[in-house]
């Protein structure tokens, strides 16, 4: 396949960026999108040009490092991570636009690389169960109903890629935050910190400059792991419950 790529190039956080056009040939439909970019980068290096910087690591859809807006959609046309998007979903001769995540809370570092450390700070504000090493009772001391375990797992699948924020017209991190709140609050082990967790995480989320939620649902549509939209409603209920109890 031969393709025309229009890629966002930006040397650093404080330099203006622009879309730059490249031609790339010899692309196999079995390549992943990142392998297609690898091909371009090999050519750029040999020409002495700076290769396109992008985050990536596991390349099997689980580490959450990769993420770019492809033809206006977070992670591109398929509901998956960018590394698991294959070129068979494009046509020979296509022009493809490639941009970084766009959100106030995710400043561009370089080219397609953005700073998502705000997510880490939201987790640090309450996205854990306090259980210092060595203090745990036997694993079977507290049975967990299968339904609760399954709900927890479904929400714990979030990979922290940031597609939900990139897809949201408001740049909101509600889906990311709610996924962790629901994962931990639905489990008996998460009970003692249930109220403070949701209050502290929502507060941290707001402090990081993420936008508010207006129920457009774009986040859940873009989520490569299928975190369900009702997760946000569940978090709002947790927040209300906690507020009524004075945050305890």
């Amino acid at each position: 396949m031969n393709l025309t790529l229009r890629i966002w190039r930006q040397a650093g956080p404080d330099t203006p960026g622009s879309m730059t056009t490249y031609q790339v040939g010899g692309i196999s439909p079995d390549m992943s999108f990142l392998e297609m970019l690898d091909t371009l980068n090999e050519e750029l290096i040999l020409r002495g040009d700076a290769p396109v910087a992008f985050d990536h690591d596991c390349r099997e859809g689980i580490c959450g490092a990769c993420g770019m807006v492809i033809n206006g959609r977070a992670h591109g046309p398929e509901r998956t991570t960018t590394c698991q998007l294959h070129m068979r979903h494009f046509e020979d001769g296509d022009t493809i636009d490639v941009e970084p995540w766009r959100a106030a809370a995710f400043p561009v570092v370089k080219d397609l690389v953005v700073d998502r450390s705000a997510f880490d700070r939201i987790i640090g504000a309450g996205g854990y169960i306090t259980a210092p090493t060595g203090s745990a009772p036997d694993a079977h001391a507290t049975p967990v109903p299968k339904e609760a375990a399954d709900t927890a797992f479904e929400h714990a699948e979030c990979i922290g890629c940031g597609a939900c924020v990139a897809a949201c017209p408001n740049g909101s991190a509600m889906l990311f935050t709610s996924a962790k709140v629901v994962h931990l609050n639905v489990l008996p082990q998460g009970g003692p910190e249930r109220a403070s967790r949701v209050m502290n995480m929502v507060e941290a989320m707001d402090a990081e400059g993420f936008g508010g939620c207006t129920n457009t649902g774009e986040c859940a549509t873009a989520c490569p792991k299928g975190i369900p939209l009702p997760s946000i409603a569940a978090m709002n209920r947790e927040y209300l419950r906690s507020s009524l109890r004075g945050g305890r």
Partner: protein
Amino acid sequence: MNASPEQNASPEHSASPEHKAHPDPGVHPAPGGYPDYSVGEPIADTRSPQGPIEQRWDQRRFEAKLVNPANRRKHTVIVVGTGLAGGAAGATLAEQGYHVVQFCFQDSPRRAHSIAAQGGINAAKNYRNDGDSVRRLFYDTVKGGDFRARESNVHRLAQVSVEIIDQCVAQGVPFAREYGGLLDTRSFGGVQVSRTFYARGQTGQQLLLGAYQALSRQIAAGNVEMHARTEMLDLLVIDGRARGIVARDLVTGEVSSYTADAVVLASGGYGNVFYLSTNAKNSNATAIWRAHRRGAYFANPCFTQIHPTCIPRSGDHQSKLTLMSESLRNDGRIWVPKAKGDTRPPDEIPEQERDYYLERIYPSFGNLVPRDIASRAAKNVCDEGRGVGPGGQGVYLDFADAVRRLGRDAVEAKYGNLFEMYERITAEDPYRVPMRIYPAIHYTMGGLWVDYDLQTTVPGLFAIGEANFSDHGANRLGASALMQGLADGYFVLPPVLNDYLAREPLPAVPADHEEIASVEAEVADRLNLILAVDGDRTPDSFHRELGELLWDECGMARDEAGLRRALERIPALREEFWRRIKVPGTGQELNQALEKANRLVDYFELAELMCLDALHRAESCGGHFRTESQTPEGEAARRDEEFSYAAAWEFTGTGRAPVLHREHLDFEYVHPTQRSYA
């Protein structure tokens, strides 16, 4: 403790000048071209306590000195890496009150490659009442490792395995559960009990997020100073002790030093030396290799694990290989056509013309034989010309029987995400068409040599998780990597690190110490040298070439002639690298091509040591298969009388002969036998 610290193998004691003039088993005088090696003092003491094996860990912990909680804030510990081992260690040390300074090259500590582990984590809980016990997990691990691991360490691993599950459940790790609310388990290769706990096909992700969340709590509390997007490029050894690291900020390119009272490497394995592996693209060997260059012995580098169930490569563009969890072998049946060159689609090959070769050769373990055996069997049938798919480099993993027996829904509940991943990559539906799989490099059992305290031969430098060589011998059993990483990080390292910090005088390192300036300059020089070449080959082109060479000559089967070829070729390739490498841009910016090229410099040296180690070990054991040493049935034949030791290598200079130090292995509890899974 039966020994004083002076007896411990440390560089100043064991790198004695009395190297024998010539190597013994296996290696004959070199015809020229590859670096020979010499034999140094054996490692006399591993600091493993004596007495009954069940009591050794208790005894060690009792004898360990403690640091008063009020004094812990005064101690700084550097932890490199945030995977299961590093994340668990950083969180635990900070909870205990130490000041932790932690590093990862990813943009967040949540992305370390442990996250990609699929199948599960072993623990001797015996919740199934199926005859499991600490003793049996210990036995299975020693045997599965083909009798090349240290018994004391493995027994401790089996003991703490039960605490890991408790810890993770308390953190909210959503393990699979039965309807009664209790934990579910499944079986893995090489064992006949059901002791593997799992969270669908994402166990590594869930365990890592548990450790990451605990670590995040400590970061927010100010007890851990986290440096993401920062890569360790060298070790600071001052007055004979590890006292810090030199690291590069990958965004600004700035090279700086960080000092501490102890350094913990949790930087993972070196499988990416092969270019194509199941490791994440940026996983690398630089942290452990630079530590090796500064005096830490590197043990058993040739012990690499080839995972039998990966998706075959689809073309030359392939940038990495994707694993399909070993748990699939619980319900999938592996077969190839009986006839050579049979190109019919799988559904047109009748049952009687299929060879379910693992079930045929190993009737009692069947499709669940250990990884090394399953991988070699796949290679053998492909070498016979019975492989399937493009290039004949694949075998079928067929779920038709499982779907008939259990129903599609049950199969989907167990393996849904794996099937989806397979379909995404190959565009084939494994519910209807058998998966095609082929072995790929997955894990490295070798790593930095450590004693019972997980301390390397550089005092104050500890190595945990895949970065060390401990516990798995010559072959790791499935679901044991997660167990070892978390065991080391949560439960083993903290008490022994206490002991080191309590015993040793550790005066503060002045910021203007000459060693700091000199190592920083070395690191900067190397980066500048790479940038200055301005040649005509990319980092990836060299890495692919090195990887193919290693896969061919030091992969699933090795022989003397091939290893000698590799040992001639690698130095030439390294020399070519320094003439032809091309990296655009500068060192003062985010420069991913420079990161790759810098890691490659270490891969060249490591690759050479792997081949030398494989050449010197003229026996087969576990994942190390020397074609010259096999049983009449074609299984790995160990040569215990000559090779019952761990090979710990001492660095003497690039391209110079390393020194071999042997740690003799005694088997008091599990007596070496020819492994049999028939």
